[in-house]
């Protein structure tokens, strides 16, 4: 099939970017979206031009590296799908496709479609862990039984891939869904309760410092999340934060 691309090109964070258009022929519907971009880049290289830079790595929807807004939606039109798992069969012959980087003040553009998401790392560093030494001798893994429902809910929160689609989807560029997923994973486990108070306070503080916006409960993040992370996590974060603030 034939497609028309409108791609954001930006040399680096210091310069302004603009859209460039490219036409591609002979695109197979079995190609993944990123393989379609590989074809575009192969063509650009053969013309001696610089290829479009985009973040990608595992190409199986789990590393969370790929990050682009396709026709106005983070990760494109298909629900519960990262860009790398999106296939060209989701598009029609002759389609116009606009590709932009994830846009948020806290995610500055590095080049073209690549953005800097290190703010997410810093939120995790502020408290996204349980303070147990790795080289110590912890208790036997089965010493503390955990209700299956709770363990499963904790797992569901922990499946967040940290891609940042929630931020890109939010009109406030809020990172609440991301932060709440991590807070929830630990809040739901007995091992995580011990440090629950400081964890939530520190992580929320860092989130604010990074310049992410507030949550106004529009729910766009949940709709665009490729891993189906639930808004319930934000409710849990708010509850944890409130009770932590009272405890001080």
């Amino acid at each position, binding site marked *: 099939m034939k497609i028309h691309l409108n791609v954001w090109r930006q040399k*680096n964070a210091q310069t302004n970017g603009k859209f460039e258009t490219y036409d591609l022929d002979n695109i*197979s519907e*079995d*190609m*993944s979206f*990123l*393989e379609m971009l590989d*074809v575009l880049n*192969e063509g*650009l*290289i*053969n013309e*001696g031009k*610089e*290829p479009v*830079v985009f*973040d990608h*790595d*595992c*190409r*199986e*929807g*789990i*590393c969370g*590296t790929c990050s682009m807004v396709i026709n106005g939606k983070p990760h494109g039109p*298909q629900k519960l*799908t990262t860009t790398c*798992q999106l*296939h060209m*069969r989701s598009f029609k012959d002759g389609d116009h496709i606009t590709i932009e980087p994830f846009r948020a003040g806290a995610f500055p553009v590095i080049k073209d479609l690549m953005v800097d*998401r*290190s703010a997410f*790392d810093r939120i*995790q*560093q*502020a408290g*996204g*862990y*349980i*303070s*147990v030494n*790795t*080289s110590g*001798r*912890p*208790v036997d893994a089965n010493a503390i*039984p955990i209700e*299956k429902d709770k*363990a*499963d809910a*904790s*797992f569901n929160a*922990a*499946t967040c*891939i*940290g891609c940042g689609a929630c931020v890109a989807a939010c009109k406030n560029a809020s990172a609440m869904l991301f932060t709440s997923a991590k807070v929830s994973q*630990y809040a739901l*486990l007995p*091992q*995580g309760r011990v440090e629950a108070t400081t964890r939530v306070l520190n992580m929320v503080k860092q989130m604010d410092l990074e310049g992410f916006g507030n949550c106004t409960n529009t729910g766009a993040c949940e709709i665009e999340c490729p891993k189906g992370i639930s808004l319930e996590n934000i409710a849990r974060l708010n509850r944890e934060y409130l009770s932590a603030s009272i405890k001080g």
Partner: protein
Amino acid sequence: MAKLESRVPNGPLAEKWSKHKNDIRLVNPANKRNIDIIVIGTGLAGASASASLAELGYNVKTFCYQDSPRRAHSIAAQGGVNAAKNYQGDGDSVYRLFYDTIKGGDYRSREANVHRLAEVSTNIIDQCVAQGVPFAREYGGLLDNRSFGGVQVSRTFYAKGQTGQQLLLGAYSAMNRQIQRGKIKSYTRHEMLDLVLVDGKARGIIARNLVTGELERHSAHAVVLATGGYGNVFYLSTYCMGANVMAAWRAHRRGAHFANPCFTQIHPTCIPVSGDHQSKLTLMSESLRNDGRIWVPKKLEDAKAIREGKLKPTDLAEEDRDYYLERRYPAFGNLVPRDVASRAAKERCDAGFGVNKTGEAVYLDFDSAIMRYGREKANTMGLKDADDKKVRALGEEIVEAKYGNLFQMYEKIVNENPYKTPMKIYPAVHYAMGGLWVDYNLMTTIPGCYAAGEANFSDHGANRLGASALMQGLADGYFVLPYTIGDYLAEDIQTGSISTDLPEFEAAEKEVKERLEKLMSGSGKHSVDYYHKKLGKIMWNKCGMSRNEQGLKEAIKEIADLREDFYKNVRIPGELNAMNSELEKAHRVADFLELGELFAVDALNRNESCGGHFREEYQTEEGEALRDDENYRYVAAWEYTGVPSGAKLHKEELVYENIELKTRSYK
């Protein structure tokens, strides 16, 4: 170069590790604060090693090419992690895990290392649970297990189909705690381009900041390479796009021996190739073989009709299907080890029974599992008279709970619903058992340079069992390296920090710069991918699932020619001193073009078939691998001498004191 010294401690096998821990030198806490360690790679081995070393008090610098340590490819491991907990009471033990791993590796791994791995496996689970890793649990609140290939117990712990993700996030969280404390400095979007030796010891690296293009010098008292495997030498593999051999290869060129490069794992259950545009292959977890049955049509005409789209697999009667693994290996059935399952699939497809357009696919069918689970569920719900439709619906729910994300991934890629029609699968490159040669302390032949996880060679022999990569990565990083590295660093308590102004750093940086400039100066005929794809074709056709003397000899020559052409004609647009994704790729492919040659040399040298290394000349009448213990019971450790094909062979004889060498049988 000195003789290979494995430094395996004396004494009975089960006591070696404890004894060794008691005997080796330690570094006291105050001195640890004066010692710097560089860790390259932040997958399971790298992240767990960094966190543990920093906790002990060392100053750690970590490097990864990804934008965050959490994205290393360990994250994509699906099925699970083994541990000899024997929670199921099904006869498991440390010895049995040890035995299964040695046998699974076709008797080409080092006994003492494997036993240690089995010993510390139980700590891993305790550790991860304490860290908040949400493993799958039973209704009673205890941890659940499942079974993997090549074993007859259930010892695999899992978190749905995302076990690697959960374990890596656990190790990453331990890293984060140390980053926050200031004990780890994390360098993301940085790639190691060379190892720096001072007085024969590894004392630092040259790294490239991938955002600015700048070269940087970093010094340390020891360097740990936890950089994963080299499967991307095949171009198409289940590895992530960025996985590369550069760090290990650069260490090799500086004096680290490379062991058994031809031992590469071809995983039986991957989604088949769909066309020339394909950039990577996707694994369908081995855990699916717990419930999926593998088959092809019995009759050639049915296979042909299926390929032409005239017949559907679901139309084929039970008696017209050939469940070839169950037929050939009744004791292990669909759960034979990966090398055996992969070769059996290739054998059927080569004989004309393949079931997709290209003829390179077999079925993985969940129908019997769906009906079996559905019937059990109906019974427990008291629905004794449920009809097939109801039973099927209940069964699908259970299969979804077990493998939902894998089924969803399959459907996205292939556009077929695996609940309704069998999956199509075919083998693909998945893991490298070979890697840098290391001694019992995980040190390479360069003093102070260590290799952990998939980057080393020691634990999996010629074939790795499922769910053992996660086990080994975490064992090396959490429980082995933090102990053993002290034995070496005890000499460095008075060294003080290493200056990056030393002439050795200057020289290494200059070499790297020249290499980069050479790459940028190609005449510009072909893209990097053009060469990578060509290399991949040579590797797959001549060094893939089966190999022979003639093909390997051709491969050695073809790869050398391709390398020459690459340097002359590769085209890299953009600038040297800025972000340049094509330059990054070119640099990685340049090293693959050398490794590929050594790979073929190693495969040619090994005149036997074992594990993932199948030489057509050496097979039984039934087509099973024919090992030669008399002549090849050794680790082939290659010393770099200037050209890959001129590498010098060193042999580490493998001694089996506790296990009797047998023909591996899964019948």
